[in-house]
């Protein structure tokens, strides 16, 4: 392999954002005809690296070298012109248009007078589709295709240019097993055609099946490249986690109460299936898994945002149907959502109004809003949660991420819930505030709340949880107690690897 020149080479790429060194000297190369896996935990810098490659971010230092020519990427078009093609996880297609029009979007072949040359378009498209061996034709409306076939359309786009390197970002996230086989065939064909492939995925199984080499990023740094045939899952996992985390496991020292919430065989096909777990009063139950594993969807179901297709939800041993968020709140289930700014807060409103939002109606004095009681509630939870704001009149949009999150938590605590679900408690929050939020979660458990924490950050789940539920594509793989869990076991469980033991 080394006799050839790399299709794509990165040399010492550094990218800093204010206060963060997102990429710190990343170098690796992809040979023509090679499938090169890029692995790393969430936040390790994979997506930043892709944005640098695609010209969305400019690197502070370092070079991108395509076929031995240093290049500067000014944007997606430029990258494409240089032969670097992305197959995004989130598809970017015009659903109402035909397959052919999507493949040649922006480059429709023309006849005279600006007319579309439909014959040539169909001819060119069919030639590409034939290569891909797909079961649809150029005229099919993209919106009528399955997700897998839509992905094929994206891949077909890659084939319209003389691609040097194709980057697949979590391509199998929404594919069935049969569809994966087709995708892997396509990748093999690209490989034969001498295209270099960067394959980003968390799924060990796939990585070991189709890649030649594996490069690992951790905390923005390049951690080394392994030859797939000469390594094993354990070595890769260790390279990804690296440091032995000194995170004290916070198993509760207080007595746990009764089971507050029990879920039996809950399903919401195809998002998650046959999910069973329970949380006791005073306990923190962590949910860990990849994006798309179904964790948020379970939370949304418990909060009445989705209808389960099967299963039971028991609150204090009593079965109930939760039909709407109003229902859930009335029964003492609260959700601190994943997207704080989009789903949790009204940024243009002040702190007090945000905090009392769910109970304005209960607090009102006659027909009027009871401003006095609202201020009292705000003051109470500001002190309790140590929210740092000049006063209740401050707009929530002006607060730091950590304080915003505390407002959301305060909002729900003031409703006196039994079960508090926190989805990604520290997303977008700086390191100092993170540990404050973690301590807050531990405190809440100590006060007798049943807390469910959903997180994509392993140190976080390990740190705050009494028990951890590991999920993989909509199913619970295993539930760990904090004594038995290790990072390796956890990573293996959420990558869908066999041998993770009994299902809890």
């Amino acid at each position, binding site marked *: 392999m080394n006799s050839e020149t790399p299709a794509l080479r990165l040399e010492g790429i550094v990218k800093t954002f204010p206060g963060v060194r997102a990429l710190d000297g990343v170098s690796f190369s992809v040979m023509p005809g090679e499938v090169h896996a890029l692995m790393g935990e969430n936040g390790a810098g994979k997506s930043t690296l892709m944005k640098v490659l695609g010209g969305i971010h400019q690197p502070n230092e370092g070079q991108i070298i395509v076929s031995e020519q240093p290049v500067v990427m000014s944007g997606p078009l430029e990258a494409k012109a240089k032969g670097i093609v992305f197959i995004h996880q989130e598809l970017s297609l015009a659903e109402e248009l035909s397959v052919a029009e999507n493949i040649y979007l*922006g480059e429709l072949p*023309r006849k005279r007078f*600006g*007319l*579309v040359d439909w014959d040539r378009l169909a001819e060119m498209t069919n030639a590409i589709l034939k290569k891909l061996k797909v079961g649809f034709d150029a005229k*099919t409306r993209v919106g*009528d295709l399955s997700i897998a076939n839509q992905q094929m359309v994206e891949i077909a786009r890659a084939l319209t240019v003389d691609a040097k390197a194709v980057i697949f970002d979590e391509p199998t996230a929404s594919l069935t097993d049969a569809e994966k086989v087709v995708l892997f065939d396509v990748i093999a064909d690209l490989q034969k055609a001498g295209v270099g492939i960067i394959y980003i995925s968390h799924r060990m199984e796939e990585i070991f099946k189709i890649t030649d080499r594996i490069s690992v990023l951790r905390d923005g740094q390049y951690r080394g490249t392994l030859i797939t045939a000469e390594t094993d899952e354990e070595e890769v996992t260790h390279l990804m986690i690296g440091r032995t985390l000194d995170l004290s496991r916070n198993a509760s020292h207080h007595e746990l109460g009764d089971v507050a919430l029990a879920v039996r065989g809950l399903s919401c096909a195809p998002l998650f299936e046959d999910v069973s777990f329970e949380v006791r009063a005073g306990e923190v139950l962590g949910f860990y898994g990849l994006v798309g594993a179904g964790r948020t969807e379970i939370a949304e179901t418990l909060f009445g945002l*989705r*209808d389960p297709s099967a299963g039971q939800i028991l609150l204090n041993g009593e079965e109930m149907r939760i039909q709407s968020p109003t229902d859930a709140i009335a029964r003492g289930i609260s959700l601190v959502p994943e997207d704080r700014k989009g789903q949790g807060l009204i940024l243009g409103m002040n702190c007090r109004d945000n905090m009392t939002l769910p109970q304005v109606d209960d607090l009102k004095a006659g027909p009027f809003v009871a401003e006095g009681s609202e201020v009292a509630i705000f003051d109470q939870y500001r002190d309790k949660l140590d929210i740092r704001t000049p006063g209740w009149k401050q707009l929530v949009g002006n607060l730091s991420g950590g304080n915003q999150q505390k407002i959301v938590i305060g909002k729900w605590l003031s409703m006196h819930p039994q079960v508090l679900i926190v989805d990604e408690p520290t997303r977008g929050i700086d390191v100092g505030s993170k540990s404050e939020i973690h301590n807050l979660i531990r405190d809440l458990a100590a006060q007798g709340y049943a807390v469910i924490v959903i997180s994509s950050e392993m140190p976080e789940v390990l740190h705050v949880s009494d028990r951890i539920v590991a999920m993989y594509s909509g199913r619970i793989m295993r539930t760990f107690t904090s004594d038995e869990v290790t990072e390796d076991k956890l990573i293996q469980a959420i990558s869908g690897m066999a041998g993770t033991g009994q299902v809890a």
Partner: protein
Amino acid sequence: MQAGTLSTFLKRGAIWGFIVLELIFFTVAGEFLSLSEKAFMDAGNMLLLFKQSAPIGIIAMGMTIVMINGNIDLSVGAIYALCAIVLLDSMTWPMFASLGDAVIPVAWLLALLTGVALGALNGLIVWKTGVDAFIVTLGSMLGYRGLVFMYNGEQPTSHLNWTLVDFAEAQFLGLHTATWFLLVVTAAIWFLMNKTVHGRNAYAIGDNREAAVNAGIRVGPHMMINFMIIGFLAALSAVVFYSESGSVNPNDGELYELWVITAVVLGGTKLTGGAGSIISTFGGVVAIQLLRKGLAHIGADTSTVNLVIGLILIAVLFLDRQLNVKGKEELKV
């Protein structure tokens, strides 16, 4: 069977089914309720229907492409009135006095150019400022209407040219002049949207703007061209109608934008852009005109007509929503 074929069929075919329903209903109801002796489906009546559809219909073709593109134009009614004034008044200008009937093409040209210019102004503002087309054209609707009133105050602007009236009232192969204009415009716009790169790019922009930008499509110029086309068509609509009537009130064309949008939406064009069909818009135009004529035929007054059309519009959008709900993944609100 591919998924969505049934719903696609329902959506595309629905407007024609609706028209057939209307015809049956008014024919039967007309037997009992109509004061007139003539049957509803009388040939003369139907020909008149197409002629009366023309003013709204011609503009609706432009609105379809603007909406497919992901925009909207609320100023068409005002453009229509302003172009009508330019058409009628320019024929009386002293500098054209020596032209005789040759003033007609000159007046037409002036009116059409006015429409294109007003549309271009809309498009330019939408393109360069990035302000939503709804807001921009809401503003220009008020502004252009202001110009109409500035021109002649509350007075109507009148000029009858009998050569022009003869032309407008002529029938060729049984169809009125206005009907021919509607048919030619429909065919031309259909051709534009389905056969040219500009048309296909307009669909792409309305469907997924980000994808279009990423594919190197220049979004702004396409939008501006479409605003110029709808301005042209609003002017053409005025030219066709006022060639015959010869008198324009400053209030003429008010609420046209809403009738036009109603017809376009009935025809299945998505408010969010990306999807829509010229032929179905034609169906929407005919369906509304049928409803107006039919209700009048059975003795309903204008207010009833408006009420019924309003209800039908909401029912259609509700149906469309039901057909478009994507499986069970939709979150409950």
